[in-house]
């Protein structure tokens, strides 16, 4: 792999950029691998990357039904934070966030991690108490967050109306090292690094069946033929239920539509990410200048990647109330993704009833920020066959036992 750098660009510029090599190879599948990962989104690619990097397992195929990074990795609002209340969540999201800090250097691909700071507004006394609880918890979890008052909120976000009247801002949970990254670049950077380790990324290849013998996985049938494998990792987000069905088990997961939108670009006006859960809206400004806005989730199963318009309206109402100056900006584009929601809205990284078959799903609305941590934990699970501490609490049997990891208990329910 040729390294990327400003010198490489200068060198290539002199020959009209004719000398750049492919960022990743597109090979035909081999007959078998040590590990097959289904799903070349951020989580699947990160799993493969850390299998190679942390465990030296590189005889790996990552199989993707569409194009890599084309699912929720390329459809989210790119928020990165780890200010979670519950210990298992804080652990994995903070692991992810800390990996994001060095990800560009690690991958030699600029994923534009921008720790610009993230605010979760408290607009009711109930929310104040919930976020204070989170700050106390984060202090013990090694996650750096702080509680700030309304004046500081206004200082960080001058365009915000903090005076209400309906929901005056009472303060905010502030994570100074939260922020955003360029979502596509995360997938592409991991893909390039995986490919450089000799892994096969096989796009346009849909899994049509899972084969097993004696309760242990042996391979997958795909639209490009049968591929044998010693271990199988299913990392397919909204389509987890379909692949799990092929592997013979059912999940506590439902697939719902989640929507987002961007405005036309304007000059920089907001240098932090703002989440307002009372009124249901969150917003940041991309490096291009677009206001990136996330909305609510539909309440019914939907695989169309199209959502219900009332959520867009609801979000924009809330944000105009919070940021009155955006009223005359225009919605440039709206889109939807299929999010996989579990019974407690927390993810699953787990062994399954099928031997050597592992699943990573249920990230719901919060997946992007978790990608490096999720891949790290999933790689450990796949490599060792048993979960490490990051994944342990996220096993799929916790629902039966009642051991929920419920983040909605803090006021911040949105991810």
């Amino acid at each position: 792999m040729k390294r990327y750098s400003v010198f490489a660009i200068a060198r290539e510029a002199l020959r009209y950029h004719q000398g750049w090599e492919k960022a990743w190879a597109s090979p035909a599948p081999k007959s078998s691998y040590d590990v097959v990962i289904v799903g070349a989104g951020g989580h699947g690619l990160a799993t493969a990357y850390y299998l190679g990097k942390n465990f030296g397992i590189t005889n790996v195929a990552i199989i993707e039904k569409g194009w890599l990074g084309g699912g929720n990795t390329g459809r989210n609002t790119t928020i990165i934070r780890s200010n979670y209340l519950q210990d298992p969540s804080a652990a994995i999201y903070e692991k992810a966030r800390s990996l994001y800090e060095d990800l560009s250097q690690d991958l030699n691909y600029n994923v534009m991690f921008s720790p610009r700071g993230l605010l979760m507004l408290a607009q009711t006394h109930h929310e104040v108490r919930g976020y204070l609880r989170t700050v106390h918890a984060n202090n013990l979890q090694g996650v750096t967050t702080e509680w700030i008052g309304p004046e500081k909120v206004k200082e960080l976000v001058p365009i915000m109306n903090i005076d209400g009247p309906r929901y005056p801002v009472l303060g905010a949970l502030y994570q100074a090292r939260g922020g955003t990254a360029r979502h596509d670049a995360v997938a592409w950077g991991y893909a390039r690094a995986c490919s450089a380790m000799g892994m096969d990324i096989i796009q346009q290849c849909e899994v049509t069946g899972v084969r097993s013998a004696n309760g242990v996985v042996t391979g997958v049938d795909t639209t490009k033929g049968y591929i044998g494998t010693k271990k199988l990792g299913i990392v397919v987000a909204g389509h987890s239920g379909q692949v799990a069905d092929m592997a013979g088990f059912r999940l506590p997961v439902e697939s719902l539509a989640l929507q987002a939108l961007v405005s036309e670009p304007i000059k920089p006006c907001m240098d932090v990410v703002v989440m307002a859960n009372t009124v249901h809206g969150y917003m940041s400004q991309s490096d291009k200048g677009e206001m990136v806005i996330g909305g609510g989730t539909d309440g019914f199963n939907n695989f169309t990647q199209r959502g219900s318009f009332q959520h867009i309206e609801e979000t924009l109402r809330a944000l105009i109330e919070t940021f009155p100056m955006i009223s005359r900006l225009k919605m440039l584009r709206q889109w939807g993704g299929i999010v996989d929601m579990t019974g407690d809205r927390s993810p699953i990284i787990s062994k399954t009833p099928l031997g050597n078959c592992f699943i990573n799903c249920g990230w719901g609305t919060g997946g992007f920020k978790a990608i490096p941590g999720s891949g790290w934990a999933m790689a450990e699970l796949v490599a060792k066959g048993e979960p490490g501490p990051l994944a342990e609490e996220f096993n799929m049997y916790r629902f039966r036992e009642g051991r929920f990891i419920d983040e909605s208990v803090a006021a911040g329910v949105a991810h």
Partner: protein
Amino acid sequence: MLILECPYCGVKAEETELAPGGEAHLKRFGPGSPDEDFEAYMFARKNPKGVHFERWRHAYGCGKWFLAARCTATLEVFGTYPAQTTEPPADIVAKIMAKRPDWKGYK
């Protein structure tokens, strides 16, 4: 933006007049039931990409719960029927069979 006809009042209600309620025809398991059954009742979901039976409440309307047969991949609606049924009515099943010959059936 779905339209579903409420089988109680006959209104072709739009989604904003309705409240979704998840998978239909779940069997309740109470005290003393096996862990697997309770887990299946509370958590395990079919979540099919295709024909799905689900609960809706005509919340901004007559307030009644009803059930709908809907395709989650195309959002086509095959029919709605009262909540006081334990499995999909035969006419709706027949209609689905006709439109989705490869459908594996309700179970």
